[in-house]
């Protein structure tokens, strides 16, 4: 840990490029050892950098607003992997895919490398920092307070500085966050008189209802939500919370629901109100002051809700009763994807529902005040003012409104009315492209900073390495400007941004009643911040509660047979487009559709039949505000009246500077703010066939299990009975249980196995070894793909690109298989997830067929793969029943890691050369590492010494890894679970991975 505050960065010399061992990983696994290499020593030895051993610094994730704590793993002075900070209350040691991909932002080749000034001809020219500062300082002085600042910086010391700084200038500042959940805040204002975002305790909730809120994807604090959700919804000795989802689209969150009920877009509120009504009517529970609502709600009968939403009455009734009786329960709404014109009313309704069920204060915790911006409305206000010529200078810090707002809002035009525009940005974003001056700023991993994602939590960031490019910390830019411009800014005279931060922390320490500011800082730095409980605000109904109403949401565009309601939704990978230039996130495939690299239009199969649209047929989608072209993806998980298009693509600037392929769904939306927010589900669109086709780069082969028992599931009742998956299946499908092997066969097998075991008492196999195993609890797995990202980062997995994915050549060592259940003839469409990686079979079929022993069985039960011995016959992959072996068809190691992305490569793992087979190794480098350490300390390995990257990252801790032979280990315990099963048990390959069947709490009436 970074436990000393000295400002010198010498201790984090950026040597990787020069390569003590740094460059090593980037070299392919051929025998290329004869080339002359240089050894570059440190100038000054660092106490906390031991070459060959990872140093970990605590930091904070800035990939979304939830502010998770990071542990940054660095080697020889370069960050190689982002992991969750176990001490951080938000994510508690786990980290989502997007967070982990943050490191690709750090090393991104298309980062702005030096200040750039727009020339008269519109092109950009690199200039020195001094020039840049001088230029901007002059402009600021000239502007005389006519300064507009748009800030994407979260709540923290920098934001405070920026605020004060802008104020001093006499300018105006808008905090801008594309997914700001304005509707949630507005509703809280209306119902409880509290203008804030509460925290939600999913872990405590026993019954969870989501009204289109994608709390496992982008809603408020996804990683935290998922952790809580897994804790309550995951099956633990006979109990699990129930999760019901209402909404127009089957998103990842709804896929993890025990039941998903499709509702007409914009009608979820009616259901919420009806539920509240039933609860009050039946007086099962609820605080006294909710009586006032009784009459108000009386008109909202379930029948009416059914009429409006299309959800059956009895379902609403039962949901209401269970919701009330479960206690504490939790209802959530306000997801971006379902943010329609009446989103505020929806959230208000849900607030009431939570209130009458008595959840407010138990699972809905006000007082935490999750960070949020000023909302879309405020931005529009400012841009209008810009158009009116009220500003001389505009400064945009880490925000990209030019991309993230609909074209119909004309942000670009209005913004360009400002004479002098400046972008403080990592990347040449669409907005930066409009500016006159682009100032490259430090990545979060390169700078000192802090963040206050919510009350009670102050999370620190520290430079874990030398800056990759010639950038500056935004804070330093402000201070330099102040020194240069003087005048009103003269008061900002801190020596450096770091000094300023320390100073403000000294104050913070005092406020915390800690005399020793230095010690306080030291401790915070080591821990990753200061973590305290959030204050809880007592909540009462406000007057606004009685103005509760839920009119039908208005839609732009004509209603009609051939027109659909458009839902432009954010995906958990691309978020607001921040993910669009991260190779990992693009290739890892969307958790729902499993599409990589491309944009698509989701259309319901019935509608598709009606219009005779095929999968992959390119459609023209037209709304009153614009039109786009994208391939059709037939998706049963939709309301037939809806087409859905993912957000995040279609930017002009990205990875290779050539722009993300794909389209920007915002082009179809109405830029007018409704009640201060942008309505993402508010437009009617018409579809037209173009007759052109595009092959969709899906990682999915066949999405049905064909009764092969891959991802098993059972009902809660069956689980309670302690049924095995096969028994449960037998019961559900009304056939006698299919014995995998008859008794005779079992006997034969036992004989065969013991015979095997004495036959291998040779060489290394004679000694006593651990047997590594893994178990995956499918009742906790949500299919979020955080494990996949972790695997990419840990194991130097190359990104192969769209063309290769189309040929099925993606290299994901661990993949999340998503199978569909039901869906046809009326039965509900359900999803099953199955994280599939090398099963490390005891009788591995891949091993005996390798002519050169490149695939063989290690004494500790791993299925070893020796890259440098592999000649590439690919026989092992043919013979693998799980198809988890991946071949280097081309020299991906040369193409997938363009400078400086190769600096992220993990030096402990060989980068595979062209023509060799590779696959999941159970993170053998971590195993060997732990064994080396244990050996140095003369102790045996303890349970938990080795944890694979996937298990470490999993936000729902569904993956357990360890030594099966050690009967006290967690893995041994979970492998004994009644729900445990192996995929393809009956081909007797004896996998080391045990899956625990998913438990679904069906409504058995």
């Amino acid at each position, binding site marked *: 840990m970074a436990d000393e505050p000295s400002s010198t960065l010498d201790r984090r010399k950026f040597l990787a490029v020069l390569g003590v061992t740094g460059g090593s990983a980037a070299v392919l696994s051929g025998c290329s050892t004869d080339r002359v290499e240089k050894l570059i020593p440190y100038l000054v030895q660092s106490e906390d950098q031991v070459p060959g051993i990872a140093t970990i610094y605590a930091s904070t994730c800035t990939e979304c607003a939830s502010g998770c704590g990071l542990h940054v793993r660095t080697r020889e002075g370069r960050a190689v992997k982002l992991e969750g900070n176990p001490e951080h209350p938000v994510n508690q040691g786990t980290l989502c895919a997007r967070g982990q991909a943050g490191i690709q932002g750090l090393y991104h080749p298309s980062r702005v490398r030096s200040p750039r000034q727009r020339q008269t001809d519109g092109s950009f020219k690199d200039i020195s920092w001094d020039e840049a500062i001088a230029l901007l300082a002059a402009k600021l002085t000239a502007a005389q307070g006519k300064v507009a600042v748009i800030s994407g910086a979260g709540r923290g010391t920098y934001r405070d500085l920026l605020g004060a700084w802008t104020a001093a200038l006499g300018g105006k500042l808008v905090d801008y966050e594309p997914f700001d959940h304005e509707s949630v805040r507005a509703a809280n204002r209306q119902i409880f008189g509290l203008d804030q975002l509460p925290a939600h305790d999913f872990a405590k909730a026993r019954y969870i209802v989501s009204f289109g809120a994608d709390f496992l994807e982008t809603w408020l604090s996804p990683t935290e939500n998922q952790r809580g959700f897994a804790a309550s919804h995951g099956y633990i000795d006979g109990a699990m919370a129930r999760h019901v989802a209402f909404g127009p689209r089957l998103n990842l969150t709804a896929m993890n629901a025990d039941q998903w009920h499709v509702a007409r877009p914009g009608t979820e509120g009616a259901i919420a109100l009806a539920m509240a009504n039933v609860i009050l009517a039946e007086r099962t529970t609820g605080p006294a002051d909710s009586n006032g609502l009784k009459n108000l709600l009386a008109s909202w009968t379930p029948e009416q809700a059914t009429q409006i939403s299309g959800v059956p009455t009895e379902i609403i009734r039962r949901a209401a009763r269970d919701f009330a009786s479960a206690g504490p329960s939790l209802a959530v709404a306000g997801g971006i994807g379902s943010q329609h014109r009446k989103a505020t009313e929806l959230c208000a309704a849900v607030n009431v529902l939570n209130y009458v069920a008595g959840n407010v204060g138990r699972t809905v915790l006000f007082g935490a005040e999750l960070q949020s911006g000023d909302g879309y409305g405020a931005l529009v206000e400012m841009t209008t003012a810009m158009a009116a010529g009220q500003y001389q200078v505009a400064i945009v810090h880490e925000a990209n409104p030019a991309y993230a707002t609909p074209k119909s809002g004309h942000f670009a035009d209005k913004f360009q009315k400002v004479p002098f525009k400046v972008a403080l940005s990592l990347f040449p974003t669409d907005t930066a492209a409009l500016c006159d001056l682009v100032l490259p700023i430090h990545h979060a991993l390169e700078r000192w900073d802090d963040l206050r994602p919510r009350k009670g939590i102050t999370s620190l960031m520290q430079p874990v390495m030398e800056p990759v490019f010639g950038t500056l910390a935004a804070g330093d830019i402000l201070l330099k400007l102040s020194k240069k411009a003087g005048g009103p800014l003269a008061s900002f005279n801190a020596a450096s941004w770091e000094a300023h931060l320390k100073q403000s922390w000294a104050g913070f320490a005092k406020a915390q009643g800690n005399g020793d500011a230095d010690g306080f800082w030291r401790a915070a730095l080591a821990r990753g911040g200061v973590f305290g409980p959030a204050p809880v605000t007592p909540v009462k109904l406000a007057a606004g509660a009685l103005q509760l109403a839920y009119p039908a949401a208005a839609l732009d565009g004509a209603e009609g047979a051939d027109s659909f309601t458009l839902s432009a939704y954010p995906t958990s990978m691309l978020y607001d487009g921040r993910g669009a230039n991260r190779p990992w996130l693009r290739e890892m495939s969307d958790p729902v559709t499993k599409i990589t690299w491309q944009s698509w239009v989701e259309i319901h199969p019935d509608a598709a039949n009606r219009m005779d649209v095929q999968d992959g047929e390119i459609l023209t989608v037209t709304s009153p505000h614009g039109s786009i072209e994208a391939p059709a993806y037939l998706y049963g998980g939709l309301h037939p009246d809806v087409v859905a298009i993912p957000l995040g693509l279609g930017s002009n600037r990205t990875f290779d500077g050539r722009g993300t392929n794909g389209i920007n769904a915002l082009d179809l939306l109405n830029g007018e703010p409704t009640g201060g927010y942008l309505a993402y589900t508010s437009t009617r669109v018409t579809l037209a066939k173009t007759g052109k086709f595009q092959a969709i780069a899906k990682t999915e082969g066949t999405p049905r299990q064909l009764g092969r028992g891959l991802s098993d599931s059972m009902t809660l009742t069956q689980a309670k009975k302690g049924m095995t998956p096969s028994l449960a299946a037998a019961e559900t499908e009304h056939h006698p249980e299919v014995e995998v092997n008859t008794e005779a066969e079992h006997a034969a097998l036992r004989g065969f*196995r013991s015979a*095997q075991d004495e*036959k*291998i008492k*040779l*060489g*290394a*196999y004679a000694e006593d070894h651990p047997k590594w195993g893994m178990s995956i609890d499918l009742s906790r797995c949500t299919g979020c793909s955080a494990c996949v990202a972790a695997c990419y980062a840990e194991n130097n997995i190359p990104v192969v690109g769209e063309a290769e994915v189309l040929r099925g050549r993606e290299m994901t060592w661990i993949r999340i298989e998503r199978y569909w259940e039901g869906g046809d003839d009326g039965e509900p469409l359900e999803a099953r997830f199955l994280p599939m990686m090398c099963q490390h079979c*005891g*009788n*591995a*079929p*891949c*091993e*005996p067929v*390798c002519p050169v*022993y490149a*695939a*063989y*069985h290690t*004494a500790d039960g791993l299925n070893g793969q020796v890259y440098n011995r592999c000649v590439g016959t690919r026989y092992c992959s043919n013979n693998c029943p799980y198809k988890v072996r991946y071949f280097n068809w081309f020299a991906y190691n040369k193409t997938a890691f363009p400078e400086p992305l190769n600096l992220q490569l993990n030096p402990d793992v060989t980068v595979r050369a062209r023509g060799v087979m590779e696959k999941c190794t159970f993170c053998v480098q971590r195993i060997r590492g732990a064994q080396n350490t244990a050996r140095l300390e003369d102790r045996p390995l303890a349970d938990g010494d080795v944890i694979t990257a996937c298990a470490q990252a999993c936000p729902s801790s569904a993956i357990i890894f360890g030594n099966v032979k050690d009967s006290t280990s967690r893995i041994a315990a979970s492998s004994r679970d009644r729900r445990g099963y192996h995929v393809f048990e009956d081909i007797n390959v*004896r996998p080391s991975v045990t899956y625990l069947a998913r438990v679904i709490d069906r409504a058995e009436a």
Partner: protein
Amino acid sequence: MAAKRVPGVLASFAHIDAACDAIRELRASGRKDFTVYSAFPNHELEQALGITTSPVRLFTLIGGLTGTTAGFGMTIWMSRDWPLLVGGKPIAAIPPYVVIGFELTILIGALSTVAGIILMSLRNPTTGLAYDPAFTDDRIGIFVPGSGEQANGIHAMLDQAGAMEVRQNA
């Protein structure tokens, strides 16, 4: 190579029975050192010559057996030299090694057979013996070493046996 020519009588026959008669007479007169040429193996000739089975078969047998041992020996020894477990199978598993054993049996067996043919044939070198291209076409040739008076006797005998032509070369 210009080896010195062996003096003798060379007769060329068009008729098989004639040739056989001649051979029988020669053998009757106690001669073994003569050479018979033919374009293809012929049973009547073999009978007349009283040919025995060739010892080449021994080469085949020993070669084959060597192959078998080599095949099994190599596979088993190599598997145990660096024991690696694959697919839960025994380190040195016999069934799969049968293939290797078999192939080497055939390979070495065949090669040693050829070696046998060559070695054996070398024991009766043909260098310097008189020869006529017709012998690979349709004639049977008999060459009897000898000179002077003795040669004349043979010449007469072969003529009388029905040779198409007989010539002596000193």
